[in-house]
């Protein structure tokens, strides 16, 4: 509320109050009262005053009725009221005493909350006057609405309302000081003359008197006519005229009646007069009568948030869902107090300005038809803005949320919203999301609500948005494939996996990793087309991190066993990182199989080292830096290369594990693999997996190589399976290196020369590393690549075979890539 806002309006020349609805922009209290429906849209000052007075009268009546003094006999009671009923110990609920005791209990609860209200602004909120007012208002409201009762948080909704009224009153007193003469009725308090009849009233003397006063104050204010004043000041004056309509009761900005006004505002906010969003609903613990979902309203509203988030930021949404962060954990507080605990008071007032200025009428009748499910929260503009605001807050924290690994850390970040924020941006974003929210609510869902809030399923089914081929209009409307398509792919993929591999533990896990890493690699913000890809990648990135953690833990266990004699491994690791850096510099994530394989080998070596856990963070980062340079590449190549790189990453992950710790591995392998399998079979709620796979397949489809796609899926399967390479990396590495050379060689010239060059470089580097690894392994194991040794391991034989098939497939992939 500042003068600047008002100065924007052209001063109206008429004496009547300005007709624009933002006329009272500077007076938040009045503006909010208008928005909340207590005051009518400003038509005339008189009308405003009358409505104000009415509402105040109602409150005063309520107060008298409900705040009961048991000592005072009831109105019209006889001198000897029925004492059997009306004594203090009476169990009769109707007696004034029991009413009194009930009030006392309520008051105790309210007091508890009030003492903890806004400690940072205690200069205002903890004054006895203010506390007394708050207490009374809350008590009366709860007595008036016994079905809601008092819930913690209501006081936080009320406090800012009272505060804005207080601010208005202060503004009034400022204005009063400046324009004092406007407020004073010149006849009041003027000393009576002996012959002080009106007729003989000595006007001259009066004007002298006034001039004296003005002179003594010595500032620039002049006695000017009311109508020459600024409209805002004019409005304030007229609103505060003690002789206007309804007299003192009608003074709209009045300190005496702050309690009344605050009560009216609070009531309107809680009941949501004739609107869709009623705050009282959020405090209810049982489902509303006409609720479609049968859930308490606040749970439903939180789900609406997630629904909107899934449309807007699906990667973040899936990440949160995966971690098990239910929306109501944080949204409960956000919604119940309308973000009161997340922002400082001044910011909050700005936000509430926006929220209240939105219309609250329900947009369409909530139909009971089970086909059409819509969220009550999103059923009005105001509700949609609230939801949009919440989602924009979540998105604001996007990067830090995606980086978290556990639900508790996620919640910590969500519940501790940062202090210094760009509020304007947040609000703008919320406004843009609001439109989306309103639209989304109209679309019909086929899936039932409830259960796990896997809202991604629902929007996907309802929005059969075409695949990546259609470039998204804005980042907001990115959507993955239709649900069924993805499901098919997932199932198909799983099937292939089963065919190709024998004991599908790690392969699947590895494969997923591959995807993760791959997509994590190409995090290129500037490319609009891969935007969708990015989203998938980001999902996987986060999941990959989880996987990395899991595996690192597993390997950590194995670490001790492996410590012996793995010194060269550390060399390898250096090599690896060097190599990767080199790759990064070459901007070469146009990897060919060579690159992938090479890295894979390095990876395996590195894992062997003591720094097992540290290894895992490495792969993400070097690919990351590689990616950053990658921006100029075409999306095709980036994705394709990522694909291959991922595969190889998978390989490398798996190989060390399997090769080194046969005994300890199987149990550990089981854990990621069933996880993966579950996901790949599309049963679990993780749609990320589906998207990953679908995304991959998408790409291949896009290139019009459906057959190749199948092949690649085969390869994938094989690759995953190759995740169980035998101990004999040495053997494989030779095979790999040969394959690598083979694949590296036939680089078609149809590709960009840059890419060719980089591919070649990579290939060479890979080869070098493969050879180094070989030698290392041979030293390590002390067994010179003899199959006999391998046969000691259960899966060796099979592993080798599978490894070789995997390699072949990888080769095919690389050929494919090279053709592009």
């Amino acid at each position: 509320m500042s003068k600047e806002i008002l100065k924007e309006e052209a001063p109206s020349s008429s004496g009547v109050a300005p007709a624009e609805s933002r006329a009272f922009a500077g007076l938040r209290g009045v503006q909010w009262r208008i928005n909340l429906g207590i005051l009518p849209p400003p038509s005339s000052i008189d009308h405003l005053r009358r409505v104000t007075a009415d509402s105040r009268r109602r409150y005063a009546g309520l107060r008298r009725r409900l705040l009961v003094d048991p000592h005072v006999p009831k109105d019209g009671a006889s001198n000897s009221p029925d004492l059997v009923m009306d004594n203090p110990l009476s169990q009769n609920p109707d007696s004034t005493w029991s009413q009194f005791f009930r009030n006392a209990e309520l008051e105790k609860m309210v007091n508890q909350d009030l003492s903890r209200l806004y400690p940072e602004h205690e200069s205002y909120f903890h004054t006895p006057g203010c506390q007394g007012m708050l207490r009374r208002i809350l008590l009366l409201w709860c007595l008036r609405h016994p079905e809601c009762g008092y819930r913690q948080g209501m006081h936080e909704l009320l406090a800012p309302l009272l505060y804005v009224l207080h601010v208005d009153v202060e503004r009034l007193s400022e204005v009063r000081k400046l324009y004092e003469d406007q407020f004073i009725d010149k006849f009041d308090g003027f000393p009576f003359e002996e012959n002080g009849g009106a007729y003989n009233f000595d006007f001259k003397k009066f004007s002298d008197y006034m001039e004296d006063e003005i002179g003594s104050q010595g500032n620039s204010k002049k006695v000017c006519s009311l109508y020459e004043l600024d409209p805002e000041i004019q409005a304030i004056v007229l609103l505060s005229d003690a002789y206007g309509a309804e007299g003192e009761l009608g003074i709209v900005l009045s300190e005496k009646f702050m309690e009344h006004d605050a009560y009216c505002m609070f009531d309107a906010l809680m009941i949501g007069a004739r609107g869709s969003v009623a705050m009282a609903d959020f405090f209810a613990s049982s489902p509303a009568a006409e609720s479609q979902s049968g859930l308490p309203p606040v749970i439903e509203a939180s789900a609406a948030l997630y629904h909107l988030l899934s449309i807007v930021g699906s990667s973040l949404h899936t990440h949160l869902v995966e971690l098990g962060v239910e929306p109501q954990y944080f949204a409960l507080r956000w919604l119940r107090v309308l973000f009161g605990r997340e922002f400082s008071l001044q910011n909050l007032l700005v936000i509430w300005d926006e929220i209240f200025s939105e219309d609250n009428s329900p947009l369409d009748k909530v139909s009971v038809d089970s086909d059409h499910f819509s969220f009550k929260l999103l059923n009005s503009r105001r509700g949609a803005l609230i939801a949009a605001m919440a989602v924009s807050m979540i998105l604001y924290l996007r990067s830090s949320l995606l980086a978290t690994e556990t639900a508790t850390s996620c919640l910590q970040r969500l519940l501790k919203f940062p202090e210094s924020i760009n509020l304007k941006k947040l609000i703008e974003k919320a406004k843009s999301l609001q439109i989306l929210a309103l639209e989304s609510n109209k679309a019909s869902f086929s899936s039932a609500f409830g259960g796990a809030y896997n809202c991604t399923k629902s929007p996907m089914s309802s929005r059969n948005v075409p695949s990546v081929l259609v470039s998204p209009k804005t980042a907001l409307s990115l959507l993955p494939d239709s649900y069924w398509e993805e499901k098919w792919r997932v199932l198909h993929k799983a099937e292939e996996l089963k065919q190709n591999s024998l004991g599908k533990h790690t392969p699947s896990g590895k494969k997923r990793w591959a995807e993760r890493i791959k997509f994590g690699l190409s995090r290129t913000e500037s490319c609009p087309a891969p935007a969708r890809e990015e989203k998938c990648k980001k999902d996987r990135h986060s999941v990959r991190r989880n996987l990395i953690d899991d595996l690192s833990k597993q390997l950590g266990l194995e670490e001790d066993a492996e410590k012996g004699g793995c010194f060269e491994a550390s060399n390898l690791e250096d090599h690896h990182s060097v190599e990767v850096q080199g790759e990064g510099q070459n901007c070469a994530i146009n990897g060919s199989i060579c690159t992938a394989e090479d890295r894979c080998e390095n990876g395996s070596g590195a894992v062997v080292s003591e720094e097992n856990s540290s290894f895992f963070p490495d792969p993400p980062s070097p690919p990351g830096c590689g990616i950053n340079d990658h921006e100029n590449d075409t999306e095709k190549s980036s994705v394709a290369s990522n694909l291959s790189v991922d595969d190889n990453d998978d390989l490398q992950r798996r190989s060390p594990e399997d090769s080194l710790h046969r005994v300890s591995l199987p149990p550990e392998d089981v854990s990621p693999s069933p996880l993966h399998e579950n996901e790949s079979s599309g049963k679990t709620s993780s749609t990320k997996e589906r998207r990953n796979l679908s995304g991959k397949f998408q790409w291949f489809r896009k290139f019009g190589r459906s057959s190749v796609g199948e092949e690649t899926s085969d390869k994938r399967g094989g690759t995953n399976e190759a995740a169980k390479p035998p101990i004999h990396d040495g053997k494989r590495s030779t095979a790999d290196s040969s394959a690598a050379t083979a694949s590296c060689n036939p680089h078609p010239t149809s590709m960009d020369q840059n890419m060719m060059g980089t591919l070649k470089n990579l290939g060479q580097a890979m080869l070098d590393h493969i050879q180094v690894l070989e030698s290392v392994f041979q030293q390590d194991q002390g067994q010179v690549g003899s199959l006999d040794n391998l046969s000691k391991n259960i899966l060796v034989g099979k592993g080798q075979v599978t490894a070789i098939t995997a390699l072949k497939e990888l080769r095919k992939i690389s050929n494919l890539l090279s053709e592009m």
Partner: protein
Amino acid sequence: MVLVLALGDLHIPHRAADLPPKFKSMLVPGKIQHIICTGNLCIKEVQDYLKTLCPDLHITRGEYDEETRYPETKTLTIGQFKLGLCHGHQVIPWGDLDSLAMLQRQLDVDILVTGHTHQFTAYKHEGGVVINPGSATGAYSSMTYDVNPSFVLMDIDGLRVVVYVYELIDGEVKVDKIDFKKTAATTHSAH
């Protein structure tokens, strides 16, 4: 708005088994701030029960009490009023107003609560009040015939005290109310 419960002469377990159920249903914890008991409970269990109704419990010794360490008399200040408590068997003749008034002057209290007669009485006397809550269980008394269970609830509010008397007559709870107003904070000096 301080609620003070005054009762006594329960004689549990010797002459009565327990409080009448209708009384018991009315006495719920949380409403009453103080309990003053004239004596003759007689056993510790009764004291424990009263303690559950309100933690602030004051008892004076009656001749049949098994707990010997209760005081003979007690004074306390609640709001603007000074209350005195005594069982009453020490003041002879038993139940005599003038003798009780002597005790009141001796203790220098506004409200004197005594028992022993098992008979409810409430007198305004010399600017003060003398109250006998009777017997809460209606226990037998050698002095009084047809004892009705009764007790007293005082509502002390500033300078005004409202005395509610609860009596069980013919199985029904009857309530009566007496208003006393203290003359503005004058300490009456007996000299």
